[in-house]
């Protein structure tokens, strides 16, 4: 796979998507179109696991031919994609495909076991909702290391995402009030300030703080910040 800068990657993504979409309207067989694309390319129904086609790079990196992917989609995804990641994708992708306007592009991280590797590799995947309810969707993936100038950033994002996956269950134990207080703590606000802002007593803030600490097993301010960053609670 080739190396791209951040803007190149986005531009290429749009270019590839546009060319694939164009060709898909004209002919049935998308194989020869997507084989020229130097990124892992998957064309599916908006239902996500109903695959239509995959390209040569996809086969090189996963070992699965387009036929195998199509005919055995459950086994293929089960073997390739990390189960947490798959759950996640099954949940938000159909929502995204159904809800958003066709001009929106989304990037997300998923974890896949590539051919000959023991560990799961993070893949940054770009996708866009279908042009019309009946048309297919295209997903293009790259590994963070192949993103050129953007690699460093993407590797950090992947680390945050891995943290988020790892601690997702723990985070779900927080109440919405606790999340609210956690945000303020992550911004560096003190207890008295938080009490004032939320019109509650300092004692109540302290109780919330203790509960957050024990639920998330926080040992330092840094731990709190890691949650705040990984779960997108604050803007720095």
């Amino acid at each position: 796979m080739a190396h791209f800068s951040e803007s190149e990657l986005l531009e290429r993504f749009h270019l590839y998507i546009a060319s694939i979409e164009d060709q898909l309207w004209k002919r049935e067989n998308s194989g020869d179109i997507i084989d020229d694309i130097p990124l892992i390319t998957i064309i599916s129904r908006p239902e996500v696991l109903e695959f239509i086609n995959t390209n040569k790079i996809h086969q090189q990196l996963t070992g699965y031919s387009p036929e195998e992917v199509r005919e055995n989609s459950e086994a293929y995804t089960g073997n390739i994609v990390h189960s947490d990641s798959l759950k996640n994708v099954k949940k938000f992708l159909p929502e995204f495909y159904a809800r958003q306007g066709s001009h929106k592009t989304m990037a997300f991280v998923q974890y896949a076991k590539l051919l000959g590797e023991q560990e799961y590799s993070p893949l940054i995947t770009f996708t866009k909702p279908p042009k019309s309810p009946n048309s297919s969707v295209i997903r293009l993936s790259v590994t963070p290391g192949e993103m050129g100038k953007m690699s460093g950033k993407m590797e950090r994002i992947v680390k945050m995402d891995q943290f988020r996956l790892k601690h997702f269950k723990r985070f779900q134990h927080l109440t919405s009030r606790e999340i609210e207080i956690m945000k303020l703590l992550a911004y560096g606000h003190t207890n008295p300030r938080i009490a004032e802002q939320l019109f509650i007593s300092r004692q109540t803030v302290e109780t919330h703080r203790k509960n957050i600490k024990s639920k998330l097993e926080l040992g330092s301010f840094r731990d709190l910040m890691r949650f705040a960053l990984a779960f997108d609670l604050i803007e720095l």
Partner: protein
Amino acid sequence: MKKQYPTGPVTHKIRQLNRLDIFKQKRMAIFETLSDRETEVLQLIAQGKNNPKISQELLISRATVQNHRAMIRQKLDIKNEQGFMKYALAFNLIDF
């Protein structure tokens, strides 16, 4: 072609890191006034280590750690705990 930013699960994080890049550019000159030792202390603070731990690790007294901390605060104009983290993130002293 119109340049678009992807929206979705990692978009917030991409923007976050882009904001940190801008912060880094703006604060580069101030950050460079830190001594090597102060940078080291900042990194340890951002790693969540408290003063006793830092004094152990760097083999310096707690009072010296306290002084470094105060000096970093003053030089970087840090108002609260988050300030240390923000600098450490922007200047790649910690991953996140």
